[in-house]
């Protein structure tokens, strides 16, 4: 019996065949083997980092050596909640994120509507490419372009002068921050809104008009509610990206601080990682609430 087994002719690459047939019989094994490297990367590095960030927020630093001390306390959070400066910064950041989101939704909706429901196939493709380019084009480059446009000898003031209007000093103010954020995140709003509008069934729109609804009524009662998840999906990006950004306020803002700036200076200059971590919990908490709300509105089906 044993002799027979040993004497079986072995095909070349028998091991590979065995592994393959094992994968074929046990698909979950194949999934596990394939999923382990990327999942390990995410769990060991990314999730571990996020968890550590949460933990660090409850630690402190030695004020003299600026070394981290693992002494559990709520001082960082107490400081954020008690000092009006930080509360003001949080309110300012959230207001800016909300303002940028509303601005982008208002600009994007008519554009996406035209793209999805009026434009021909060819124009649709061209417009999609036209949104794709600024979506991917360098963030810093697009920000820098606005510095060139808004500064006092820039394109804007030159154009105003040509019309006989006194120059506007927009650069280095919160207004500039608002314009630049709205500009940079606009494509993030257009694409999901467009995708949602394209999925609104034509039959529903026709049914509404057959039933006597006017154009605006159809828009308000049929198209808008069906497209809303797309707008909300886009707003996740416009809102979240504004919440954490410090580059734009540093380069074109008027020196007012946003959450990102304070986090940035606490890592760079003050080297107070625990405080930065506690402050970083603010956008995480706000985004968690935002995502729960977005899920209720069906934005994840649109994602």
């Amino acid at each position, binding site marked *: 019996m044993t002799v027979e087994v040993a004497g079986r002719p072995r095909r070349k690459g028998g091991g*590979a065949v065995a592994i*393959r047939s094992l994968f074929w019989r046990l698909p*979950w094994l*194949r999934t596990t083997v394939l*999923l382990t*490297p990327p999942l390990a*990367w*995410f769990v060991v*590095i*990314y999730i*571990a*980092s*996020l968890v*550590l*960030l949460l933990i660090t927020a409850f630690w402190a630093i030695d004020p003299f050596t600026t070394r*981290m001390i693992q002494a559990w306390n709520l001082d960082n959070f107490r400081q954020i909640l008690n000092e009006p400066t930080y509360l003001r910064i949080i309110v300012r950041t959230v207001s800016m994120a909300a303002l940028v989101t509303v601005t982008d939704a208002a600009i994007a909706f*008519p554009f996406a509507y*035209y793209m999805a429901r*009026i434009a021909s196939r060819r124009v649709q493709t061209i417009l999609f490419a*036209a*949104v*794709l380019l*600024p*979506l991917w084009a*360098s*963030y*810093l480059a*697009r920000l*820098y*372009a*606005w*510095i*060139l*446009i808004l500064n006092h*000898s820039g394109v804007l*003031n030159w154009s105003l002068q040509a019309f006989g209007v006194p120059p506007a000093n927009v650069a280095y103010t919160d207004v500039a921050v608002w314009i630049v954020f709205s500009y940079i995140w*606009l*494509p993030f709003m257009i*694409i*999901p809104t*467009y*995708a*949602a509008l394209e999925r609104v069934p034509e039959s529903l729109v026709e049914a509404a008009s057959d039933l006597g609804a006017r*154009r605006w009524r159809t828009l308000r009662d049929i198209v808008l509610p069906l497209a809303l998840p797309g707008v909300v999906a*886009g707003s996740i*990006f416009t809102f979240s*990206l504004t*919440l*954490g*950004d410090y*580059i734009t306020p540093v380069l074109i803002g008027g020196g007012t601080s946003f959450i*990102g700036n304070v986090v*940035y200076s606490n*890592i760079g200059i003050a080297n107070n*990682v625990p405080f*930065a*971590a506690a402050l970083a919990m603010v*956008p*995480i908490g706000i*985004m968690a609430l935002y995502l729960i709300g977005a899920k209720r509105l069906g934005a994840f089906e649109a994602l």
Partner: protein
Amino acid sequence: MSETLTRIALRAWVVLVLLFLFIPMVVIFLYAFNSSKIEAWPIEGFSLRWINVTLNDAEVLSAIKLSVEVALITTVLALILGSCAAFAIHRTTFFGRDAINFLLVLPLALPGIITGVALHAFFDYGGILLSVATIVVGHTTFCIVVVYNNVLARLRRTQGSLVEAAMDLGANGFQTFRDITLPLLSTAVIAGAMLAFALSFDEIIVTTFTAGAQNTLPIWIFAQIRNGQRLPEVNVVVSFVILITIIPVLIAARLTGGGGTSRVPAAR
């Protein structure tokens, strides 16, 4: 009557938005050819003066070299990890599938500063010195998803019957992979790689928190704008970065018909 009016108004709106999107980028390119040292509009005249200066600036060149290096390593890692994830998720319906989708998108959906600070704290706590390697780790984390999205989308559109036919005709697993699966996937894989490269090349926030003394190109640009130094060179560098980030995307869009390039996970 009111319908045509609405149409005209919408068309006008579309034109205005397109102008809003593209005028700033055109302005940048014009400034790159400015002959003057002063950043004022209108530009004095056209010249290649600052392009020459920039091409001979050792600091700029070494920043470009580092950025390319980081982007290349990131791309390779993202390709491997993203493809693995896509192959694993494809054709399996297990409970954790949505969770994994969500997990992979998270680093792009959360503000970059969260990923940056978290990784900074992680390296700090682990006693890992910030270096090129830590930058690559940061970049790979948010680049995996673009490869994953592209490969997964293609796998879903590819018919399993082709693979089965090859197997029935006696091809072994490797042959099937080489002759059937890979050619079907190749453009999606290349598209994913292009996008990962573009994303990494332009990244600044995560880089700031994961870099030690290293200057990637975006960090160099940020420092110059902030200090108001060498702005004529910044015009040139920034135009170059626009091209480097746009060209891969155009190629990727051609290869995939636009689907995988939406960055915002919208087309599913």
